[in-house]
């Protein structure tokens, strides 16, 4: 019986039909899809890491300068109040000023100094910032005043949680804030 089957298979001289070959090609094409996706996702993960490391780098640069300035923040704020004539100006107004934020997020070829601004009036104190990579779309500060009324040691002064936010996109088709990194530094005014 077995010998007959083998003989039949050997005698059978027909090849694959065009339909079979096309079906096989379609199946191969479908199987390649996940492989291609795997490669793309690996690239995306790698690129995401690059920009995360860069964001940490940019943030530490700003955080260090803000910490160094913290001893002078009261005087800088007083300066801003003199220049604007607005005695109610806060540190939040200063660091989230639109003109200042626009300068922070600008793309330049070289590191540059970005002067603080108060209601559009530039002060004569600045932060130095590295040139922002083209894929980064945002570099800004957000401030939240900390409630220190219940603490025993830190009762004097105003404390701020300064959040440094970076947004970037990996593909040009991505939304400008498709990737985001936030870093915090606590400042005493």
């Amino acid at each position, binding site marked *: 019986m077995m010998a007959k089957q083998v003989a039949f298979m050997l005698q059978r001289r027909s*090849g694959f039909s065009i339909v079979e070959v096309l079906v096989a090609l379609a199946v191969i094409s479908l199987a390649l899809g996940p492989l291609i996706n795997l490669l*793309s996702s690996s690239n995306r993960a790698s690129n995401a890491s690059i920009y995360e*490391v*860069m964001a940490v780098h940019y943030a530490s640069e700003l955080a260090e300068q803000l910490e160094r300035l913290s001893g002078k923040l009261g005087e800088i704020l007083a300066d801003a109040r*003199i220049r604007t004539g607005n005695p109610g100006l806060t540190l939040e107004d200063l660091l989230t000023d639109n003109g200042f934020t626009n300068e922070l997020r600008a793309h330049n070829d070289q590191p*540059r100094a970005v002067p603080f601004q108060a209601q559009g009036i530039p002060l004569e104190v*600045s932060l130095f910032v590295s040139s922002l990579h083209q894929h980064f779309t945002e570099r800004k500060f957000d401030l939240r005043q900390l409630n220190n009324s219940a603490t025993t040691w830190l009762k004097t002064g105003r404390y701020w949680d300064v959040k440094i936010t970076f947004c970037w996109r990996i593909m040009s088709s991505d939304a400008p804030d498709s990737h985001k990194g936030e870093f915090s530094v606590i400042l005493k005014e």
Partner: protein
Amino acid sequence: MIYHGNRYWGSRRGFSFVEIMIVTILSAMIIIFVQSFFSQGVKNTLKGTDTLESIRAASLLFSQIRKDLMACQSIQTGAASLTMGVNAVDLPPGFPVSDTITFCARNATTTYTLVTAPRGKYILRVFTPTVGSTETKQFGVPRIKRFEATQIWKRYRIQIFPLPIKSPTLKQGQVLVNVIVDSDDRRIVTKELQLSSIFVSQQMYPSNWNYFFP
């Protein structure tokens, strides 16, 4: 005896020329697409991994520089120093840079230098204490081309008097360190990557800790 029951499996007919052409063209199209996609994908992966390696290595270097800066009393960058006025925001074109930076502490000096070796360039950190043996450490940033350091003295003014009386200007020291990475390798086509970091080398008011005051 040949079985004729099935039109496809049983047929003794081979491929026609047109069929072979269609299958060949379709296969070629798929193979070319897949090959180009994978080739580009692998190239992008290599490039991404390589850039990530460079950025991570540069971050380690910057982190070590920051630590040395915190402990030092003065910085030497040779002639690579510039002063920026109160209202200046951009660095002047062609500003001086040095490929060596030295941090002088009370009992030691630490020098970072770009060294060119047959297998490529790297940054050498030499820690020389006044007592004890010298320690060296190599920072290999893949594909590093240049290492540049400059001291920037930025003038600033905090207005404490009512205008128009102008308060005196003060000067704050900062150190700009640039690491420029680029590739000569044709397999990894990357644009020049400039990684810079700015360190505050001086506080804005006199104190007796951490930072140096000339």
